């Protein structure tokens, strides 16, 4: 830890992952929130909405997961 360049690289990749997780975090919030609104408006469409919501979350989450993989790749240096 004492001026170790490798630990700096590791910390930076961690920060990078944290930054990368912000967008998906907001995005998933929006997706889930709107899905709840839609379910409240049309409870009979619940199944379809839930499926679409998970698809949307999966797509949004992709960025965070790429970040996760990149964290490992980058910190491996």
């Amino acid at each position, binding site marked *: 830890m004492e001026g170790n360049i490798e630990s700096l690289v590791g910390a930076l990749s961690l920060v990078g992952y944290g930054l990368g997780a912000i967008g998906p975090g907001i995005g998933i919030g929006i997706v889930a929130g709107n899905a709840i609104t839609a379910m409240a408006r049309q409870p009979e469409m619940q199944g379809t909405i839930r499926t679409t919501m*998970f698809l949307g979350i999966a797509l949004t989450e992709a960025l965070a997961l790429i970040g996760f993989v990149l964290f490992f790749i980058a910190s491996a240096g």
Partner: protein
Amino acid sequence: MATSECDVVNEVICAPANVNELFEFPTIFTIGGLEFSRTHILMLLAAFVTVAILYYGLRGQRLVPTKFGAAVEGMVDFVKDGIARDVIGPEGTKYVPYLMAMFFFLLVGNLFEITPLINFPITSRMAIPAFLALTTYVIFMFLGFAKNNFRYLIDTAWPKTVPIGLRWLVGLIEVFSIFILRPITLAVRLFANMVAGHLMLTLLLTSGLIFVAAIPEIGVKGTIGVFWFGLGLFMFLLEILIGVLQAYIFTLLTAIYIESSIHFEH
């Protein structure tokens, strides 16, 4: 994580010198140059536990199921009706065995994380998520090309329903997301969730115990262990939810991907 390695005087939490220590176990035996450890045994154990659960939950032609049988049947119906039929439709019957095997195997694998004496989610090793995601990828790619020939690729890359100005961009994103991102994210989502969960649980609970045990040595600072341990217990409950949810999401996304290949229209 050995207690001796933990520097309770200078640190506020015990971290292993190498994160892989939490996920890799010493080799027990070697077959043909391949090293086998506790992980491999746990994987096979998970398979047998899954089979046992299904067998004892479903055996016999009971008209009135036992409590355990009713629970298993509830989950079976959940996969059969809630995932296969609702998402894929009537054609979904064909994929029920795959989806069901996947759901139950992942459920048991995930819940191994919080099972006493095992305490290790086998899905936090990339092998299982990667294999299942790859299988799903092969299935939905095969279906996509078998049912739509090369229109599957062409229509994805050049969607006719999108205004011409945006078409190339949407097509690019679609191709990237369907052909490359889908299998990777499918595998990494499960893997990352289980790795993070296992890491958090182990760090918090172990640190909690170590710090509380070290109170005579470090005094008031040791009470931080109570906080870590409490947080660990909360995470423990949360991990139950995450384990079930991740098994569900993995299965659901597999069904959604299969459906999108069967009913492909752009």
